[in-house]
């Protein structure tokens, strides 16, 4: 009898594992120091009370793709979605260890950081190609959005027909302009937030529940 019960459990477990729709993987992409990990940490803390990774003002703090699974987000509209949040290393076209030395890193450490950051970009692009169902493209609203890397990345995301929400981050800073970002990417929704202060993140959650279903 127990044998039968156990077999039945095994089979149903197997079937569940097999047919369960995996939750959508939402990748947070963007140039270095846009605040990707800060936002990932906020999302994860708000909904499951955990954290994704450390943040710092030195670019390329995140050099490996990090993932938190099964986060259920609800908007005030009552919709909710379950997603995996994938925090990615900042994508850039140039990485030079000298940049890190300006932040006080020793040469050896800076060279190592540059090498890891390069691997990180390759890993982020690998994920984008195979494992991502939707993208939050993060931009620092105090910076020029018309950088070549942003245009290229949004183009790549569009060519893969992935839904993308553009986040204009750091709106708590005085020279931030979410409008400049909106005019750069009029074809996508742009949500201005402050990942650090938590300003307007509810709007982002609501947009996510609508957009990534």
């Amino acid at each position, binding site marked *: 009898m127990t044998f039968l019960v156990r077999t039945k459990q095994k089979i149903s477990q197997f079937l569940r594992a097999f047919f369960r729709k995996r939750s959508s993987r939402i990748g947070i992409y963007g140039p270095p120091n846009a605040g990707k990990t800060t936002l990932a940490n906020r999302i994860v803390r708000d909904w499951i009370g955990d954290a994704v990774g450390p943040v710092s003002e030195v670019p390329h703090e995140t050099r490996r793709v990090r993932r938190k699974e099964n986060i259920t987000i609800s908007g005030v509209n009552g919709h909710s979605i379950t997603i995996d949040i994938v925090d990615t290393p900042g994508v850039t*076209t*140039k990485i030079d260890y000298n940049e890190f030395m300006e932040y006080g890193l020793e040469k050896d450490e800076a060279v190592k950081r540059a090498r890891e950051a390069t691997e990180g970009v*390759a890993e982020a*692009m690998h994920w984008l*190609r195979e494992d991502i169902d939707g993208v939050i493209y993060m931009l620092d609203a105090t910076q020029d959005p018309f950088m070549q*890397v942003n245009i290229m990345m949004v183009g*790549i995301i569009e060519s893969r027909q992935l839904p993308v929400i553009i986040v204009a981050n750091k709106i708590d800073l005085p020279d931030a302009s979410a409008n400049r970002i909106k005019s750069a990417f009029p074809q996508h929704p742009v949500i201005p937030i402050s990942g650090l202060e938590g300003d307007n993140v509810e709007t982002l959650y609501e947009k996510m529940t609508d957009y990534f279903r």
Partner: protein
Amino acid sequence: MPHKCTQCGRDFEDGSATILKGCPSCGGKKFLYIREAQRHDDVLEEKSIEAIADETKQEILEVKPAPAKEVEVYDRIESIRIVSPGSYELNIEKLAQSDEVVIRLGKEDKYMVDILSMAKKKKE
């Protein structure tokens, strides 16, 4: 009405596209617009082109050399370029296409091809 090369005096028919690339005889980049009547003044009256320019108050036209074209990012074959140890240039277009890694070393066209990354089985 024609243009004259200020360097060698060669003249070109009006609207000639040749001058856009510089004078084919001497490589000069500056041309003066000359009225038909004065077309041969430089030879017949032994005036310099500059003198004619002063006389006619025409501005000398300078053809800007076409900027040396750098290879566009998307035309590059390498996915990563190692400029020097610890300094990298990433071709994210290439990285977005596949995992196959071609590395370019330094400024010259020296490449390293990661055969292992190309031998990996493609998913689907």
